[in-house]
């Protein structure tokens, strides 16, 4: 796994700068990857990671003065074609595969390129695909339509496709973002296989644990500058976070005993195939953590609590009152708010303005004369929440897509807090949010709890619930199998139980 940089480096870049409209996106950056090394590129959103990758792959040209060497050869300028020919491949987060085509065709797609029409030999496509998969020690059904494969296998297809084009250095952009733990493990083992066969891999990931697990060295970028290159041996997550953000975060346990009355009580809740016999109570002002692997049934449980699906058995009581939801409109009316895990697709309407997104859930409350929307009430609501949650925005009329992940998440929160909920269901609120911005979101969560809001914090990252929740429930295969008090149970113990 650890082929440390040797004389034959895959990539040796130095003096890389890039200026966009007067702003230095990259400033005298050096980046070296050894042949066959697994290297990690770490840094917060906006630190210059993607700009650097785009320069290496020839999408952007660096400012003059850059020294660029790929597999021992000097370049004064790199075009995308040159980068590809030199053996560099990028696997973007969206994978750029073809859902309607077969696995074999996707892997061997390279052989079908070119402007002059040629005959297609499906036998040759297959043999090319078989050879590429053999190099990864992976077995896939070559005739399956790609669209029918789970994301994890599509990722393998994308990697195999890169190998077909003779890639010797593969960039992977957030490859594990939507994978379960076992899928991630499978991917990491493929990466190790690649590395063992001399293919260097540059890993870009938010998940620090796996960064430290898989890579031998990590280059940390902050504000367009290299903070340093560190061996991962002996590096801790908290130290890496500090390097990335430049500040140290309290990793203290925030847990305390909320004194308020029970707000939400769930008894024996069951929905076939999703979750089974779930019981817990949530007190006023409490942050209750719910953790478990992807697929444990956490999101499904949230959907029922929010009235989007109906339980087969069991009951939900809110402030002593039985709840029967016909739809999530009822849930909202009863004071339950749900911040979904898929912020981009479900939480926000990306093309609409920040203001429109904020008031989406409370349109009825901001009507004026004749039941028409009142611009004044809307403005008041929007500016109240923007300042309350300190969302950093240009103008409220800007599209929400112009905001960073952390600020988008705050807009989602604002949208739901505007409904004045009693219970807030937070489903993986930090997916795609930077380490620095995460702390900000959890400060808000804590402040909301102080004001008496009952919060169910769902997350597959155990440290998050460990640090921010008052109590932690562990869900596995649809059941709650443990309850922990972070003041008594250590993080490593929780992680061992969850990731076992």
């Amino acid at each position, binding site marked *: 796994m650890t082929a440390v940089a040797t004389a034959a480096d895959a990539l040796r870049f130095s003096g890389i700068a890039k200026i966009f409209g007067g702003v230095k996106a990259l400033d005298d950056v050096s980046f070296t990857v050894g042949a066959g090394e697994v290297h990690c590129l770490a840094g917060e959103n906006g630190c210059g990671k993607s700009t650097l990758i785009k320069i290496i792959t020839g999408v952007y040209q660096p400012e003059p003065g850059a020294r660029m060497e790929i597999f021992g050869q000097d370049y004064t300028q790199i075009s995308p*074609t040159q980068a590809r020919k030199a053996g560099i491949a990028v696997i*973007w987060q*969206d*994978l*750029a*595969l*073809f*859902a*309607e*085509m077969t696995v074999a*065709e996707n892997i061997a*797609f*390279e052989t*079908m*390129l*070119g*402007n002059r*029409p*040629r*005959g*297609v030999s499906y036998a040759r496509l297959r043999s090319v695909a078989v050879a590429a998969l053999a190099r990864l020690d992976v077995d896939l059904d070559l*005739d399956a339509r790609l669209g029918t494969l789970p994301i994890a296998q599509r990722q393998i297809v994308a990697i195999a496709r890169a190998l077909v084009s003779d890639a010797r250095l593969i960039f992977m952009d957030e490859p594990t973002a939507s994978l379960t733990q076992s899928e991630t493990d499978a991917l990491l083992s493929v990466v190790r296989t690649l590395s063992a066969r001399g293919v260097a891999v540059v890993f870009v990931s938010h998940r620090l644990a796996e960064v430290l697990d898989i890579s031998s060295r990590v280059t940390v970028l902050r504000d367009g500058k290299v903070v340093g290159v560190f061996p991962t041996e002996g590096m801790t997550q908290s130290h890496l976070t500090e390097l990335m953000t430049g500040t140290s975060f309290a990793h203290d346990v925030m847990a305390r005993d909320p004194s308020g009355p029970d707000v939400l009580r769930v008894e024996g809740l069951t*929905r*076939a*195939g*999703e979750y089974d016999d779930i019981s817990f109570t949530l007190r006023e002002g409490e942050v209750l953590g719910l953790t478990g692997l*992807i*697929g*444990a*049934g*956490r*999101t*499904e449980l949230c959907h029922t609590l929010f009235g989007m699906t109906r339980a087969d058995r069991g009951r939900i009581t809110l402030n002593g009152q039985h709840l029967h939801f016909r739809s999530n409109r009822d849930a909202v009316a009863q004071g339950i708010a749900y911040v979904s895990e898929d912020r981009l697709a479900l939480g926000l309407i990306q093309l609409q303005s920040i203001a429109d997104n904020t008031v989406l859930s409370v349109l009825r409350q901001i009507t004026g004369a004749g039941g028409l929307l009142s611009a004044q009430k809307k403005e008041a609501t929007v500016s109240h929440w923007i300042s309350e949650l300190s969302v950093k925005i240009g103008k409220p009329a800007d599209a929400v897509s112009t905001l960073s992940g952390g600020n988008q998440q705050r807009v989602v929160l604002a949208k739901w807090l505007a409904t004045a909920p009693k219970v807030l269901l937070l489903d993986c609120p930090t997916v795609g949010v930077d380490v620095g911005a995460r702390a900000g979101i959890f400060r808000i969560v804590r402040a909301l709890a102080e004001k008496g809001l009952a919060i169910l914090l769902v997350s597959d990252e155990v440290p998050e619930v460990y640090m921010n929740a008052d109590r932690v429930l562990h869900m596995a295969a649809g059941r709650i199998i443990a309850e922990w008090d972070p003041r008594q149970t250590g993080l490593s113990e929780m992680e061992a139980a969850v990731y076992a």
Partner: protein
Amino acid sequence: MHSFLRAYPTESKLLAVLLILCAGLSAASPDFLTLVNFTSLLNNNAVNVIWAVGLLVVLIAGGIDISFAVAASVVQYLCVYAFAAIGGGNWAIGFLFAGGFGLALGLINAFLIHQFRIISIVVTISTFNAFFGLLMFFSSGRFLYNLPSWWSQRVILWEYQTANGTWAEVILPVAVMAVCMAATWVLIRRTTTGRQLYAFGDNPEGARRAGIPIGLMQAIAFGWCGMMAGIAGLMQSHITKEVVPNALVGRELEVLAAVVLGGARLGGGRGSVLGCFLGVLLVAVTQNGLNLLGVSPYAFKMVVGIIILLAISTSNLDPAKWFGKGGKA
């Protein structure tokens, strides 16, 4: 067999429905399962199939074309005048001209779509109106009967007198249909260009990043569709022995419906020649059956509409989902 079912689920389903329908109609009407009826079904639908395989290529590439039927009318007019200008012509020149004019009209669509980055439905609705308007204006709505004799004389490829004295025959358009189907199949299944068309329709951004020339893809897709439309126009006039400016307008939706019925996806990236053929045939057999059963022709369109709705809505149901595998995260 199993691999065919897996690779062509829509086509297999369609084939099964078609066979059941045929069996039912054979039982219900003695006139259905006859050589005469089958050959006339083929003769009458050859033009639709030629259009369909042209449109298929556009759908695979992620576009849509509304203008091809009207384009076929334009090609018919251009051909009449061009043949007159060169003093008659023959079949070889006929195919060359019809295909060439059609190709040119298709390339106009491709140019507008690519150059101005307008979505294809908007462009082809515009060219549909422009082509039709120009045609009506310049022809003043006149019919043309002065077709060269090679064009209007029925070419019978095969005929057979059945026991009761009626003649079963297969005419030229059926052979042309077969050639167009074969050529389209080779293009989309057997050439790299065809696979690039699929990829482009499936994931345009992915195709762009892989280095597929987008403009060329549009030109090939709409050019092919135009060429097929021109050839279909030539065949249509061969059958009717006349050129009527508004004879074909409206047929585009019928063909589009049949192609979608045959498994082509409006989003691009999916569709097959076999599916097109079966789609056209299913609609045709249904109409034929209703006709033989004495149902009012006014009900035809309604029934066809219902069939298409059923086919499209059931194609999104996955039987595998009904058994086992419940909710997954």
